[in-house]
């Protein structure tokens, strides 16, 4: 009996190895055959909405590219792996995608902590990796094979600090951060820096860890200091409950957050308590520009839900990769890396994407207000422009980014108007 079991086990192992070995094998690198791209993300863990949403965007982009004839006649295949939102698992699945499936490029992750764990594997194997939405600066500092299509935390933290200080006229702020997440700590640091520079004061910094159940201790302590705003740079799973408990404690000041809030589940957890909060995000689903509305329409037709920013970034990441593949004419690592890193003025759904010298995308952020289950557009804030950086919409809520007056002062070869795929402002060649 034991022997039979053992031999059965051996046979299955053999078959599995065989099956895996075959998948990516012939496609690796080169100029012909199908292009195998690896995707990894949190598909079943605590932040599974991030991974699933991003994957939806990636798959939709890949299908569109394949339908349009692929890349120089080659079809794209996406192999996706689940990292359960755990850094160590992210490193493992990326190693598997590289060694076993021989992917030519990697897309992922959302949470910076997971990307940071996986990036060294891609770097040492010389497989280009594009992160759709990891905003911690350290991510692309891992090496020249790692890039991203989103803005970074110093900017995102600054955006919220500017919004709090200039628009909400806040003088004091409290911060409630997720202690174990590089994303949250990064945002805290940069928000504090910018907010202090703008003349504000951070009166209290409280921390929690993912999976905590009770936040009233921290919130009560914050309440006693009466700050004008509370910055909560966390992920949706905790933030919804924090908002709810803040309301139970009768805290009326607005909560501010980042792109980590963006998920439909946020509303299930937080409900009405979220009304009146503000977040910084990558794009607004309400933007009337035709390219965005076409993307939103196609996405809804395919998945029956509105795309959140992560889906849009996943979509953009795949298309930036496809664009680089086309320009490189090959899927060999070094050439592909160079093509990705020289991406310029790529018309993405989340704005015009230019990869800068640090392999980060330089693009504006939007500030959205949470109201009745919707993200209402407030402002667009562009990177590094002096003084009046805020392109304020005349009547918030009604005027999405496209109608906002164009801001002249922007840095880099980056057209001012946000979220526009429209060819109009495609000037400033540098």
């Amino acid at each position: 009996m034991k022997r039979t079991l053992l031999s059965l086990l051996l046979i299955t192992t053999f078959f599995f190895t065989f099956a895996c070995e075959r998948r990516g094998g012939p496609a690796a690198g080169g100029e012909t055959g199908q292009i195998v791209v690896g995707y990894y993300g949190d598909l079943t863990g605590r932040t599974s909405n991030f991974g699933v949403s991003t994957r939806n965007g990636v798959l939709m982009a890949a299908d569109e590219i394949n339908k349009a004839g692929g890349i120089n006649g080659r079809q794209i295949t996406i192999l996706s792996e689940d990292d359960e939102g755990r850094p160590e698992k992210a490193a493992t699945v990326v190693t598997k995608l590289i060694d076993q499936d021989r992917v030519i490029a990697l897309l992922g992750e959302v949470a910076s902590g997971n990307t940071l764990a996986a990036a060294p594997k891609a770097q040492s194997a010389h497989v280009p990796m594009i992160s759709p939405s990891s905003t911690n600066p350290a991510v692309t500092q891992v090496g020249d094979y790692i890039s991203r299509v989103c803005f970074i935390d110093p900017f995102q933290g600054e955006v919220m600090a500017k919004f709090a200080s200039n628009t909400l006229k806040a003088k004091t702020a409290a911060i409630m951060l997720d202690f174990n997440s590089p994303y949250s700590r990064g945002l805290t640091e940069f928000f504090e820096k910018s907010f202090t520079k703008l003349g504000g004061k951070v009166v209290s910094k409280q921390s929690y860890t993912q999976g905590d159940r009770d936040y009233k201790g921290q919130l009560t302590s914050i309440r006693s200091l009466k700050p004008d705003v509370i910055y909560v740079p966390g992920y949706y799973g905790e933030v919804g409950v924090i908002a709810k408990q803040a309301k139970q404690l009768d805290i009326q000041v607005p909560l501010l957050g980042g792109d980590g809030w963006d998920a439909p589940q946020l509303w299930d957890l937080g409900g009405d308590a979220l009304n009146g909060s503000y977040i910084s995000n990558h794009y607004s689903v309400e933007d009337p520009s035709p390219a965005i509305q076409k993307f939103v329409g196609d996405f809804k037709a395919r998945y029956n839900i509105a795309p959140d920013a992560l889906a849009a970034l996943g979509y953009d990441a795949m298309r930036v990769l496809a664009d680089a593949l086309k320009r490189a004419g090959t899927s060999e690592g070094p050439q592909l890396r160079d093509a990705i890193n020289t991406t310029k003025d790529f018309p993405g759904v989340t704005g015009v994407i230019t990869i800068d010298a640090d392999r980060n995308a330089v693009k504006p952020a939007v500030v959205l207000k949470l109201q009745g289950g919707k993200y209402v557009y407030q402002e667009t804030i562009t990177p590094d422009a002096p003084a009046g950086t805020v392109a304020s919409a005349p009547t918030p809520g009604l005027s999405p980014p496209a109608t906002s007056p164009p801001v002249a002062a922007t840095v880099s070869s980056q057209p001012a108007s946000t979220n526009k795929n429209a060819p109009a402002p495609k000037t400033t060649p540098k």
Partner: protein
Amino acid sequence: MDTFIQQLINGLTVGAIYALIALGYTMVYGILRLINFAHGDIYMVGAFVGYFLAYQLGFAAGPSLLGLTVVLLGSMIISALVGMAIERFAYRPIRKYARMTTLITAIGVSLLIENLFVARLGAAPRAFPQLLREESYTLFGNAAISKSQILIFIVSIALMLLLQWIIFKTKVGTAMRAVSFNLNSAKLMGINTDVIISVTFALGSALAAAAGVLTAQYNPQIDPLMGIITGLKAFVAAVLGGIGNVPGAVLGGLLIGIAETFVVGYGQNIGVPSTFRDAVAFAILILVLLFRPTGLLGSTVQEKV
């Protein structure tokens, strides 16, 4: 002063939940000398049973007292059955072996439940439906207490009194106390020990399930791994109060809850960051074990259940 009272209310809320769960640990330990590590997961199961009951029976649509009662009782009954099943199929067959065997089985059962739930439902947090209209009352100036907190206090006190009554005033309770003194003698006296052990698991599991549903009202975020840390802290609470001692479990739970909240609320003033909250429970455990190995109320002569 407002802040102090507010933190005290927050701490008592958390503590009441720990106390409810700690009762299950302490009762099972009292009878079987077994630390039932799967108990924290019963708390999670309770919350999820409540979640599905609320949706299946249509109570998720809006707050109603009837819905809350049905969901709470339903979850307690179903979780009690789950607890009995675990005892029947995982612990009873190996009861005759060394105690270590049962302990390791308990850890195995705990991992099994957690991972079954993750596999079936995913680890992402879900939102528990609101069964109680969310309102806050203000006491002593600026201290807010929400309806869900009041509910936690009322229900947990009622359940603890009920448990006390069952243990000391009913026949089953007398039998439980007899079994906790000596299982074999109790058997010789004609007590059906298997049934009594089953009842103990059912009672403990029902309390844990109640804790699950009550927390979910207070904090609507539920996920399959929510029982790990909460369960561990409740275990610490049980040991702190003196494992095997029923009032001790309640005292321990409340102490841990208040200590944690105060670390978060006031720790910063003395340089202890709020992340040290979880460490505090375990630091207390170590100190208590060093100076009073039997716990605050535990002693070898005291009556155990």
